[in-house]
């Protein structure tokens, strides 16, 4: 039984990494959104499972937030933003998808390598889960910097957040998880609103189309 419990948790964590790779793989806007919804779904499942095995009911809240906000509301909102702002349907990537995937694999390897020396008594599945969540975080960052497109960058950021929540929930009995996840959801929501308010069409670093390049501090 115990073995099985751990394996399921393990499965969810691994699945999350897999979905992150799927995110990296996407080059179409709506496909990206759907994949992200899946990402959020996996997270919420894993959180719920953790809530169950740790008998920590407050984690169900986190799971719920993950499900509702990130698996449903935000994808929908982003969908509408894309339509409304007429953002290109394709995603401009830095370097080909291939290199990105390779880099991603390297990152996963790195995170496992980093986690190796951690002694076991930190928690039996802590090491693996940490390795996975670290990979998710790194992949999210990779996504943020390898996409020239606001929405996909937001999604990258949110996948980072998912990785964090995974880690937080895997850390057995960690207090304040709910508060933290709430705070984080606010952050994400603000970012999404920001995109909408500031009319960010393509990239983070242009607030307005005709503001391109002009207001970036001083070009000496």
């Amino acid at each position: 039984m115990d073995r099985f419990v751990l394996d399921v948790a393990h499965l969810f964590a691994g699945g999350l990494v897999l979905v992150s790779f799927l995110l990296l793989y996407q080059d179409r806007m709506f496909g990206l959104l759907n994949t992200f919804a899946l990402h959020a779904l996996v997270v919420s499942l894993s959180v719920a499972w953790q809530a169950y095995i740790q008998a920590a009911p407050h984690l169900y809240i986190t799971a719920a937030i993950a499900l509702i906000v990130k698996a449903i509301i935000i994808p929908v909102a982003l969908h509408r933003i894309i339509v409304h702002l007429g953002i290109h349907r394709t995603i401009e990537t830095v370097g080909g998808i291939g290199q990105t995937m390779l880099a991603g694999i390297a990152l996963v390897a790195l995170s496992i390598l980093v986690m190796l020396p951690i002694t076991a008594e930190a928690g039996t599945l802590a090491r693996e889960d940490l390795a996975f969540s670290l990979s998710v975080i790194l992949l999210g960052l990779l996504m943020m910097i390898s996409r020239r497109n606001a929405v996909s960058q937001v999604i990258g950021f949110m996948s980072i957040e998912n990785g964090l929540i995974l880690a937080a929930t895997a850390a057995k009995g960690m207090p304040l998880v709910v508060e933290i996840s709430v705070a984080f959801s606010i952050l994400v929501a603000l970012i999404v609103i920001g995109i909408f308010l500031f009319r960010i069409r393509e990239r983070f670093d242009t607030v307005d189309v005709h503001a391109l390049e002009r207001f970036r501090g001083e070009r000496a």
Partner: protein
Amino acid sequence: MNSLGLTLARAILVIPVISAGLLALFPDDRFTARVNVLGTLLTFLASTGLFFVRPEPSPFLIVDDVNVVFIVLTTFVGFTTSVFSGSYIAHELEHGRLTPVYLRFYHAMYQTLMFAMNLALLANNVGLMWVAVELATLTTVLMVGIYRTPAALEAAWKYFILGSVGIALALFGTILVYLAARSVVGEGLDAMAWNVLVTRAAAFDPALLNLAFVFLLLGYGTKVGLAPLHAWLPDAHAEGPTPISAVLSGLLLNVALFAVLRFKMVMSANPGALAPGPLMVSLGLVSVLFAAFMLYRRHDIKRMFAYSSIEHMGIVTFAFGMGGPLANFAGLLHMTYHSLTKSAIFFSVGHIAQVKGTQAMADIRGLTVSHPVLGWGLVLGVITIVGLPPTGIFMSEFLIITSTFARQPALALALALGLLVALGALLLRLNGLAFGNPYGSEARSKASFAPMFAHLALVLAAGIYLPPALVSWFQHVAKLLG
């Protein structure tokens, strides 16, 4: 005694919240400005009480040698800045750069920021501190963007994104710390409480701690503005309202660095963990040198002093990285002095930019002739910030360099080089700003000079005489920092 201390600590948190609420409600700007000052004043007075009575550490709040000075410093600068902000905002309203609506928002946000920073300093809980820092980030983001010019919005946006990523990294580090503590302390709040962490750190899993520290250093380091994580800082300083620049440079950077310090204590309490020194030293050195050279090509006065803040955060990080009683002591001093001096500089710069109607240094000349008080205030501030005696910053830099040179000559030389290059840049600009024939508008400024000179006087006095109590606290902290 304890109960009194606890009430004081709570007051420091509650007063800003209440005044934030009030300020959000009241429309009249004259009145709100006063309320703002009153609120910060009360907070400051409450915090001074902590010098004399300290509460026992509770699971969420703690007052110890480490944070007492910074709490008082924060509330003090918060108070002086609110005074400065009063006259600053009045001018902005006259020239219609701010509407009353935004003003209400501004004041409310100001108090929220104060609350967030006080919370971050007072928090005895790693997660709570993280939440507080995030809150501070959000509020400052909103205030940086308050002028709604494209430049301001972009600065805010840049700050927002980079800040959020940093926050995310910091959170992961926090989780790791909890994991490391859990196996020793057991689950629950204790595993996130500072006082517990520091005392029990010796038994933690070093590998986890190392990993945690990397993330914390990068996460909070982004907020500190260390190169290469600094990108948000100059624009946020340049485009936001000057009081916010003052608070950012003077306080928020300190708060973030304070968080790093807390974790460094945990690290140094654990024999197995890797010494955080080299990481911090290299980050600090990079920041100093980078900022020093960046100073030369600046045209915007506020952005220039923002870079100088990066430089000084670098110096402090370098000092803590070097470690040892002298360097740590000096680092703590330098944090204090820098926040006082830099906010004073921003006070004068704010008024200068207002009377001259520009932030472009090319259009600001001969201030000591056209606006003697402002001009000499700026001269005094710059002379202080570049570390010329007899001001406190000279003392801290003296201690840092001398104590380093005997151990790591190369590092000390690099640091000295950075200091010299930065000094060259700042003095070069100062020449243009303060001396020569005046240029541009000669309009008198209805400025409140008290805050500026109060800060400078404090730094000056501190350079000559330090109160023993402060010394003993800092020495104790320096010992803890290892």
